């Protein structure tokens, strides 16, 4: 057993992860509990040990928002986990539930119609932009920049309004369902999206002036919290944090789902791996998401009236629901969904949320409930970064690193 630990230590050294000799840790260190009631922590606790002003050891103590999603997913049938799971990343609801829906679809052997796929991508990208803006807002407040918080929060409302126009809910959309989506867009919707894109492009310029090119902010972020490419791969860090370190890993590209393989977009990658690079990745992703949105609404305008839900579902509709589907373009969820049975089998659903890759391992024994739903969210995978990115930095760098990792505890704790 001791051999294993030595192996572990040597392995860490080889990676260049900061390890401070234990002699120094024992002497004159100061243990600080940051969180859960702390302005710089959110709903988690980071236990840091400081030597003077330098962090020598950091340990994330998570689980403050553990709401037992995996257990509840096992007892709530197949359709009810969708609203359940979107509470993990409430401002990124479509991205976080779509992989589950796809996993269930895979087990059922159905595939959503083309238009439904485009509609899913539409909401996913709207959510991605809103989630990145939320991340900016929190990041701004961590760096003491309240104007950044307010601007990003205000502009996030634009995208939330769009999502609300599409689905009827500000945050918790429950939009994708097995077989398709619940609603179609109305005729003015593409123009609304284009207006929002025009507005956001103008605002990104303002952000650059006030935040990204601000000398104070730049000096706080440059060279802080560097995670090397090798560390990213070893620690399994995903999302913009990985792409800020030069790892071009994005599920939309690596394992394309829905219609991402038909769309023209780039995955921004920065090589530096510091907090500034991670911030830039997010800005570039907002731009790319807006490019995707333009293509999607163009396609949607050209292909009006195509089905939004799979035949195997809509064929079971009664005449009233069929009428609603045809006239109002709304797919009702029927009682048959609540007692839906899914053939036995196992599937993995994966997707790229704003924070990175989310994985659902869904196992069915052919019954009314999933036998096992295992969820690995991007924040859960990024949590380990705190342990290895913080040591060696000053205490005042903690909010900068925390904010740049864009960690969202409810998502991590499930």
């Amino acid at each position, binding site marked *: 057993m001791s051999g294993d630990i030595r192996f572990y230590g040597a392995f860490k050294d080889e990676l260049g992860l900061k390890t401070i000799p234990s002699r120094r840790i024992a002497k004159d260190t100061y243990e600080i509990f940051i969180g*859960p*009631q*702390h*302005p710089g922590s*959110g*709903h988690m606790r980071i236990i840091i040990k400081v030597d003077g002003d330098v962090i020598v050891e950091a340990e994330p103590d998570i*689980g*403050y*928002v*553990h*709401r*037992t999603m995996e*257990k*509840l997913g096992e007892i709530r049938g197949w359709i009810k986990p969708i*609203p*359940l799971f979107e*509470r*993990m990343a*409430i*401002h990124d609801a479509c991205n976080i539930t779509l992989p589950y829906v796809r996993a269930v679809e895979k087990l059922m052997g159905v595939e959503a119609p083309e238009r439904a796929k485009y509609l899913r991508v539409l909401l996913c990208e709207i959510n991605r932009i809103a989630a990145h803006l*939320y991340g900016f*807002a*929190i990041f701004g407040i961590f760096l003491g920049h309240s104007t950044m*918080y*307010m*601007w990003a*929060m*205000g*502009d*996030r*409302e*634009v995208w*939330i309004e769009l999502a609300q126009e599409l689905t009827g809910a*500000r*945050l*918790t959309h429950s939009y994708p369902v097995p077989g398709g989506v619940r609603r179609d867009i109305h005729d003015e919707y593409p123009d609304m999206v284009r207006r929002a894109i025009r507005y956001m492009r103008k605002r990104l310029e303002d952000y650059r002036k006030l935040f990204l090119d601000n000398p104070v902010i730049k000096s706080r972020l440059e060279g802080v919290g560097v995670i090397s490419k090798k560390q990213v791969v070893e620690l399994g860090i995903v999302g913009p944090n990985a792409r800020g370190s030069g790892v071009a890993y994005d599920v939309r590209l690596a394992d394309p789902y829905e219609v991402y393989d038909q769309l023209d977009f780039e995955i921004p990658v920065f090589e530096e791996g510091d907090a500034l690079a991670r911030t830039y990745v997010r800005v570039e992703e907002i731009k790319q998401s807006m490019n995707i949105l333009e293509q999607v609404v163009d396609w949607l305008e050209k292909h009006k009236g195509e089905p939004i839900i799979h035949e195997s579902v809509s064929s079971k509709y009664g005449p009233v629901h069929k009428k609603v589907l045809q006239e109002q373009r709304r797919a009702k969820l029927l009682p048959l969904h609540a007692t839906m049975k899914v053939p036995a089998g196992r599937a993995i659903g994966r997707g790229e949320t704003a924070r990175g890759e989310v994985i659902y391992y869904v196992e069915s024994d052919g019954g009314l409930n999933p036998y096992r739903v295992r969820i690995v969210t991007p924040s859960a995978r990024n949590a380990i970064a705190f342990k290895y990115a913080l040591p060696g930095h000053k205490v005042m760098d903690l909010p900068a690193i925390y904010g740049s990792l864009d960690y969202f505890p*409810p998502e991590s704790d499930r």
Partner: protein
Amino acid sequence: MAAEEGKVYVGNVDVAARRARDILLGKLKLEDAVDWATSFSLWPVHLTTSCCSTEFAATFGPRFDGEQFGSLPWVSPRQTNLIVIEGTVTRKMACAVRITWEQMPSPKFAIAMGACALDGGLFYNSYNVVRPWEVIPIDIYIPGCPPRPESVARAIVELQRKIRRKHLAGEWVRTGWRPDREPVKPKEDVCSWWRG
């Protein structure tokens, strides 16, 4: 996206404010003045218990601007007088909620936000969720999952009214006691797991 001037969507604050000002300038009864001051200076403490925090953040964003009611999210519990339970409270978090509540100086108030804070919400049968009202006394409940920012603003205004109507703060200054309730003690020791 700024809030439009001259339009209020959340109740008749203006009238209440004018009345409060009259009390302050006219009769100048100290307790009423304290009620008025407390109701227009409800600073929520920064304790994010769960995912309703996104809507809470939006409440204090520019579109809904909770600061216009004099409410400013503040960093340390010692200087605040309002705690907003933002959604689910887990067993691990309940300890933090209780400690934060006890660190706040009286007169203090609590708003429970979201269905989970009412009675568990979607997580009503989860093994890791406690009801916030078992941990601290709640003044205002906001339904919704998550509640819209308007309803959070509305809850703040309702709490302001409640403080002025029932003289919650003034009574506390006079007697050292909240007139409307006994202090809630949690049934079980929510922090027992931490020491043990």
